[in-house]
């Protein structure tokens, strides 16, 4: 396969649950090193789309290529090993493990300790553990959590820190593509700004492509290079933030038919409920 400039290519991807079509023949590409967003009203199929990429669901039809190779139907752990990391819409940390342990779990696929080595506690395993710990602490610092928090039970961390820990854990999987599912949900403006900055840093410093699902339009407009809009499983618009902002169909999807008719385009649409 020739190396393409697109890290992810989805063609006519469809997901049906019995009679319900959650995602309907969506075409989607992400350029390497870009920050893209997927938006749409509730129930548009965004998380389902994410879940197909990450292996939680298998597409009913269509092709899904990551780095030129098909990932449709792979199991979640296989997808992660290929280089896609993710966070979850509702935080799914390992609540009763410490922050450090959560990040270390993220590194699971990148470590090599095998059963025998663990049982005999070989030098290799010991060294790998030590360096993994150091790397994990560095990641915690990187996302702004700091090493004092490392040994706290993750369930007891404040909400904003939990979100950041999820990002650290996803980064620990050493991804080429990072999927963030509503990373700023429930955050106040300061936390949101900090996270936005972090996302940019991740792309700039670590050369990771980022795909966001977001409802916070400020964040979306601010950070995305390209936005894709889904509504009821269909892609209704795609392009730069300005393009999407003024697109009639998008406004209609979010605000209802009346809003478009009254020429509400041109102004930023209100944050979707």
């Amino acid at each position, binding site marked *: 396969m020739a190396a393409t400039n697109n890290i992810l290519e989805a063609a006519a991807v469809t997901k049906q649950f019995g009679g319900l079509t959650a995602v309907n023949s969506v075409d989607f590409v992400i350029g390497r090193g870009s920050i893209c967003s997927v938006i749409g009203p*509730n129930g548009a199929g965004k998380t389902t789309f994410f879940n197909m990429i990450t292996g939680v669901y298998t597409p009913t039809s269509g092709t899904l290529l990551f780095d030129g190779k098909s990932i449709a139907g792979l199991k*979640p*752990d296989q997808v*992660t090993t290929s280089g896609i990391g993710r966070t979850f819409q509702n935080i*799914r940390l390992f*609540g009763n493990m410490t922050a450090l342990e959560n990040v270390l779990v993220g590194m699971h696929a990148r470590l090599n300790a095998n059963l025998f080595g663990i*049982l005999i506690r070989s030098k290799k395993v010991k060294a790998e553990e030590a360096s993994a710990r150091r790397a994990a602490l560095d990641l915690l610092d990187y996302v702004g959590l700091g090493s004092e928090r490392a040994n706290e*039970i993750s369930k007891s961390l404040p909400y904003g820190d939990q979100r950041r820990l999820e990002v650290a854990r996803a980064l620990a*999987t050493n991804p080429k593509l990072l999927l963030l599912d509503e990373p700023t949900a*429930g955050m106040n403006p300061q936390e949101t700004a900090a996270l936005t900055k972090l996302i940019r840093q991740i792309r700039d410093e670590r050369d990771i492509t980022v795909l966001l699902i977001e409802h916070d339009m400020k964040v979306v407009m601010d950070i995305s290079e390209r936005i894709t809009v889904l509504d009821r499983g269909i892609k209704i618009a795609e392009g730069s933030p300005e393009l999407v902002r003024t697109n009639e169909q998008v406004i209609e999807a979010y605000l209802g038919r009346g809003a478009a008719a009254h020429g509400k385009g041109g102004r930023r649409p209100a944050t979707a409920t």
Partner: protein
Amino acid sequence: MSNAVKVGLWSGLLGLFIVVMFSGRSILMCGIITGVFAGLLAGARTDGSTMRDGIRDAAIAAGVGGALLLLANLIRHLLIDPLVAQTPPPLIDDILVGLLAAAIAVVIGVAFGAAHFLNGRVGLASARVPASSAATWALLGLIIIAYPFLDQAIQLGWIGIIITSLVFILLAMGLNVVVGYAGLLDLGYAAFFAIGAYTVALLSSDHLGGQLGFDLRLSFWLVLWIAAAMAAIFGLILGSPTLPLRGDYLAIVTLGFGEIVPIVFRNLDRLTIKIGDWVLVKNFNLTGGEPGISPIDPPVLPGMNFADRTDQRPWYFLLIAIIILSMILINRLRDSRLGRAWMAMREDELAAASMGINIVQTKLLAFSMGAFFSGFGGAFFAAFVSGAFPSSFDFSVSVIVLCMVILGGLGNVTGVIVGGLIIELSDRLFLPQVSLFLQDLAKANPTLEWLQRFDPNLYRFGLFGLVLVMMMQLRPEGLLPNARRRAELHEGEEPVEAVQSVVG
């Protein structure tokens, strides 16, 4: 009253109960138990923080405990012995022995109390542990090593029961890997115990050789590992059908296997394999059927005599060695990439998979590692009782071991050991003794004739069941749970500090 006195009262009460039920010889053992108990607890709950405080509190606790022991001996002498129509030794002897026991308790208690407050760190540069835990463990180690000699000296006769209890504790440690770390509810753990035992039985006895005409008697030291490996392999085999199952269904399937395996062992004593008219084997006695396979060769080690079963001390030390080895291996597993994968999988299987954890492999490894230690236990047990009998491997074994893990606090090795000791000793040591005591009481006193009908032994299982139910109602996290486990199990009750996640 201060913590120290409270601790002392509790330790002493325990000792009192033991001394009253058992003969006077047990009081010296009680002195040690009281001392350890008092010293450990006083150290943990002391109000002060210097070594002097530790010593003082431990001394008080052990002193109170010891005083209760002396009191117990007097009660025994003056009240109980006449009641059960036994002639007690001379009073002065009883008093002296009681004082001796109390003194032992105080000395040991103080030693533990002091050890708790040792400062600094010891060990290699790569693994520095606090001196206080190192010292405490060293003291415990001393007592563990000294026990058999004491048992021999005062002719206590508990060592056989202690050994059997320790086997079950080994099993509990293995089950802890499956249930506690990986969160896979296994109700059929006895199957692996059986596999370990029968492997040894088949490879280390005359059973197969006698029928097939050649000699197949491998050394115990080799068969021990083969048995563990066989158990691990069966862990893989029996684990693989359970992979897509969750919770209840997983429990039922493992229960099923736990029943099928002993039934198979019980019934493969008239094996006839025919293909058409060609008879492969006829009436071959593979597993010894209901009477099992017996005898089994004991281990051979120069300098130690395993064959003479009147002196069980070599067995004791062998088992302690196996347990220590298992503890080391289990700790290594827990603190490794695999251990973290197990815990992540237990918390949230999907999130774990999304972090690159191969769930199939991780579950299979949990089953096989858990089974591995059970194989050790089975192998030792078969050699120890010199036989593999199908009746030793029924559902109650699986439940008892599970009970130990739960009582001890899932996922906590120390807790499992403590829980195991409590259950096993209550079941094998105390309950029969209470029964005997009541019998003696009834025989010696016609007015208490109705007691003869009341046999606590009959209530064993009911009591077990009661303990299980009560545990789940009052303290599902066990005796010495991890803080995290406690948090998990009381989830529905306490409000979480962090803002509830937004439901998308």
